[in-house]
């Protein structure tokens, strides 16, 4: 196994730029010396509540925010010291599914242009893209008839499927998911979780999920990285972390997680069987 993504002591934050104040640079540090490695073919979840810096980690991985110090290695190459065309080449191997399906689709664009955009940007001609669009729509379970609709006509679950189709159309090797289910209904959430896992199994991608929901993470990851105020407090396989949490914070996350009470057989924290 080779590491596909590595963060080395990444410290990152945001500059506050406003009017003349930009002359005085103020930086708010969000991530402090974060290091972790993701192996090829792994499913990793980064857990944190709002304000823990999980979105900032995403931005750093996706090449949108240059860390103040530290390195981001993707395929062993330092993302932020590459010339921009090579960086783009690497970023094209990452498929990204953003958080809010209601704000992530251009409301005036037809679905086929949204889904086909990554290939268009890579310089593929439209007549070849059309066929590939049909393939990915079949994979994510959307009818072909929506190709000429705009996003406003779709429900939340369908929007999320469109975003997943867009993320996998260029056959990425890394799939980055930002809260893939938080805006969806329970039954749709379950559908999306199952869809993502079947994509993982079919295409052998590396999957990185960012979420605040341990229950969702347990289905979408084999390894958990738990983040609190910009620092990693715990790291380990799902079974380990859930059975025997080391840090107090993780323990509190697990005990405060909502369970269906009153049905005793489901209530004990036991790892039984192997999930699909």
């Amino acid at each position, binding site marked *: 196994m080779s590491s596909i993504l590595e963060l080395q002591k990444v410290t990152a934050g945001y500059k506050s730029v406003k009017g003349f104040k930009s002359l005085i640079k103020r930086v708010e540090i969000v991530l402090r010396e974060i290091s972790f490695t993701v192996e090829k073919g792994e499913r990793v979840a980064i857990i944190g509540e709002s304000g823990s810096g999980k979105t900032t980690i995403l931005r750093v991985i996706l090449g949108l925010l240059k860390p103040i110090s530290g390195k981001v290695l993707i395929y062993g190459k330092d993302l932020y010291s590459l010339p921009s065309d090579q960086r783009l080449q690497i970023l094209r191997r990452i498929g990204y599914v953003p958080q809010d399906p209601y704000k992530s689709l251009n409301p005036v664009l037809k679905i086929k242009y949204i889904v086909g955009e990554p290939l268009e940007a890579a310089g593929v001609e439209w007549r070849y893209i059309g066929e590939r669009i049909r393939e990915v729509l079949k994979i994510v379970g959307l009818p072909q008839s929506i190709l000429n609709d705009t996003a406003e006509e779709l429900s*939340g679950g369908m929007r999320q499927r469109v975003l997943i189709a867009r993320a996998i159309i260029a056959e990425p090797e890394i799939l980055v998911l930002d809260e893939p289910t938080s805006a969806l209904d329970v039954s749709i959430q379950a559908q999306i*979780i199952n869809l993502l896992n079947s994509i993982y199994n079919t295409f052998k991608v590396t999957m990185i999920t960012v979420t605040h*929901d341990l*229950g969702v993470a347990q289905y979408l990851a084999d390894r958990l990285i738990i983040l609190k105020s910009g620092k990693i407090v715990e790291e380990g396989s799902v079974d380990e972390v859930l059975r025997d949490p080391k840090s107090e914070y993780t323990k509190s996350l697990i005990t*405060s*997680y909502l*369970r269906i009470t009153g*049905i005793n057989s489901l209530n004990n924290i036991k790892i039984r069987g192997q999930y699909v």
Partner: protein
Amino acid sequence: MVLAVRASGISIGYIDEEEEYIVWAVRRVDLAIEEGDAFCLVGESGSGKTTFANAIAGILPPHVVTRGKLYIFDRLAIDESTWNFNGLRGRVVSYIPQNPGTSLSPFLTIEEHFYHVLRDTLRYDREKSRKAAIEALLKVGLDRGVLEDYPHELSGGMQQRVLIAIALASNAKIIVADEPTSAIDANLRASVLQLLGKLNREYRVTLLIVTHDLASTSIVCNRLAVMLAGKIVETGRTISVLRNPQHPYTKMLLDCVPLLGVKKPLKPLPGEPIQVVEDKAICPFRERCPRAIDKCVEEPPLKPVGDEESHYVKCWRLTGGESE
């Protein structure tokens, strides 16, 4: 037992922009909530649960049409197409909105929030409202220090507690909470729900919680109703419904909830919750139901099941439709 809420055959619909058709969000629902109950309306988006809760809270928008009757503590609040919530809204029934961050005014301190509400509902002056506020904040586990704070200085969980405290301070007998946990982080949800449960037990407040999450239902509520496409498809005591779900839709919802530490496959049914425009008498789950039979084109009646009392379900297969 006094009934806190009694709805008989209530329908609520939204008029389309051009007044051409009405989208019925709630369709001929009968429901009774006893005083002191913690009642939960479970359903996915488009099921009409929020509309129904808004009707009980008396905050229906003006472009809504209603049918049927709604009584709140034996007072007729909705009588066919006329509504009268005077003396009920804010005084008897209080409402906790979904998103605490956008429900508090960023320009007012917490104390002023209390004052504005209590002045309008109970005619309190500043002194009296401050006292009531401190009392209510203690009940929800906050100290008096937050009175001088502005909403943005509080965390999401604290904002939610402040909203609950405001509802408490106005001496409401019924608290309607719309998705109280969906906008806050997973690890804060349990404490907010436990707080609501405590209020219900210790102060005899009737709770009506609207949610799509069966797990949060099980923590607070003693009774629940599952809504689908504007209709109640299953209702009963929480334990009896969750242990022994009868309707295929309830079963599916239970199969879809991730349980921490338990590796069971999630089993959603294909398709999405339907949103009904026409008011047809048809089983709303027919399209997705794996066990649909011919009779399902007609609307099944709400009938009791099993030996559990007050457990009702709306399904032909379970309540003696035709044999298979």
